[in-house]
């Protein structure tokens, strides 16, 4: 487990002081894939670096698997760092060394016998599916391949934790997906806790279990990824979620809804299961004297569960709508009335 206790970090540049981290308290469970998201300058990379002491906090404690990182001696810290792998946005591979030598390096630092290094490196290269690039120099590799080597190097010492600092930010979407799939595989098969810093919400939605949202050096929101995605609270979180689930109804469509003279209500429905979302809506239509009009629908897979977000106009008498709402709740569908939603109304009025 990684535990942050009252972490503060102040950078002083000439006369300016910047509070890079303010009162951070956070727990990351063993075996988790934990995402830290925020815009650049939010402090997420600094927070990540306090885990392996690349960045020392001004005050506060970081406890990694029972060890208080900042009370370790230099020698103990070096030993501890060997149990925490790290990958970087710019890969940070040694350009003058081959793929094999790069991956072997952390083992050489540990004075591992040569034949053991050989065996381990070959195994890891196979794991990251780059055994054929063994004797190639990094300059001959693509970005995705470089990151795979970065990952292989980080795994060489068989760490229990892997820190990922914007590891996919320099990669195209397709390559990003393959790297994320690899990270997931590492988490599952090698049972390594992964902490991911990113500014891309799709990274969070595709592999993280928990997420912390950072802004101005503070954690403004944190929790289960699926909860954050279905019910974001803070403005910044809503904006991040929007980059993955664009739950905005086109203005033209909304206008026609507001011009509707019948009695209606706008509901934002949240389906959280692998059940067919369609059947619930169909049932509502059949069972009650109402008419539903789907204005927006999105279905995404998050943490291997289906998250459906629908925005629906329900037309009918209030009593029937109320019954329908009851039925939805009974079938595990969350709903929120959007009638008073300022954002929606502002655009139309």
């Amino acid at each position: 487990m990684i535990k942050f206790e009252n972490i503060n970090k102040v950078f002083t540049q000439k006369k300016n002081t910047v509070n890079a981290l303010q009162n951070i308290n956070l727990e990351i469970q063993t075996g988790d894939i934990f995402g830290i998201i925020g815009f650049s300058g939010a402090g997420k990379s600094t927070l990540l670096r306090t885990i392996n002491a690349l960045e020392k906090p001004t005050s506060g404690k970081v406890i990694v698997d029972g060890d208080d990182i900042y009370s370790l001696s230099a020698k103990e810290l070096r030993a501890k760092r060997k149990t925490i792998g790290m990958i970087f946005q710019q890969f940070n591979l040694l350009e003058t060394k081959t793929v094999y030598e790069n991956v072997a390096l952390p083992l050489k630092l540990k004075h591992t016998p040569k034949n053991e290094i050989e065996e381990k490196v070959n195994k890891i290269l196979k794991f990251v599916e780059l055994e054929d690039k063994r004797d190639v120099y990094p300059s001959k590799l693509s970005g995705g391949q470089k990151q795979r080597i970065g990952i292989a190097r980080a795994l060489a010492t068989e760490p229990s934790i892997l820190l990922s600092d914007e590891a996919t930010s320099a990669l195209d979407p397709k390559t990003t997906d393959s790297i994320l799939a690899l990270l997931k595989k590492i988490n599952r098969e090698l049972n390594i806790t992964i902490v991911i810093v990113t500014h891309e919400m799709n990274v969070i939605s595709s592999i993280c279990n928990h997420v912390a949202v950072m802004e101005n050096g503070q954690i403004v929101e944190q929790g289960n990824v699926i909860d954050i995605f279905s019910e974001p609270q803070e403005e910044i979180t809503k904006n991040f979620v929007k980059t993955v689930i664009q739950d905005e109804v086109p203005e033209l469509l909304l206008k026609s809804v507001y011009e509707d003279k019948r009695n209606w209500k706008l509901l934002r429905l949240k389906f959280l299961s692998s059940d067919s979302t369609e059947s619930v809506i169909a049932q509502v239509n059949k069972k009650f004297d109402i008419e539903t009009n789907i204005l927006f629908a999105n279905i995404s897979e998050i943490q291997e569960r289906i998250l459906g977000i629908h925005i629906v106009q329900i037309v009918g008498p209030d009593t029937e709508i109320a019954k329908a709402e009851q039925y939805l709740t009974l079938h595990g569908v969350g709903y929120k009335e959007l009638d008073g939603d300022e954002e929606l109304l502002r655009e139309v009025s």
Partner: protein
Amino acid sequence: MAQIEQFLGIPLEKIYTAIHETVYMVSISLLIGTVLAFIIGIALVFTKKGGLYENRVIYTLINVVINVIRSTPFVVLLIAVMPLTKAIIGTRIGPTAAIVPLTIFIVPLLSRLIENSLLDTGKGIYEAAKSMGATPFQLVFFFILPEAKGSLILSLTTGIVGLIGSSAMAGYIGGGGIGSLVLNYGYNRFNFELMYSLVLFLIIITQIIQSLGSSLAIKARVNQ
């Protein structure tokens, strides 16, 4: 052979001896100088602002000493360090004595060049090394030096060329070597055939060393 000797106006043995002395002066001072310059260069990189062991006092101190020595003309340096030379070597003249001022001359120059080469290694490599739990020693020998190899070869080449030039000047105070041959047998005796031949020889040697250094550097960088 005899024709060459006649053209140059001195026995060839004298030239062989001079070449031998120059090689001796240059190689010994280069060897000592490189070791010292690496230590100082690494110290500069480490104690620099934002460096791994940022230390303003040490950095400024080394910096000032380097600048003082580098701004002293070599002829002045040669004479100024004579008491020190006498104390260390036991004599002020001869190729062995010349090693002292040559080393003092080359260390600051090489330190600065090495510092610049090492600064090329990006901050990312430092972070990667630290995250792997590398010791400061490992950081230098497994990360910083290998990554700067190409640039370091160029720095050393510049150092050798500088040393050859300065070693010729050491002939001025009886340092021996090709420089003193040019001065005493060429210039002072109006033997311009000898003088220009030796100068040409130095030019060719310098060219060869520079090309060798450049191609080695390219070889070291070919994979980057």
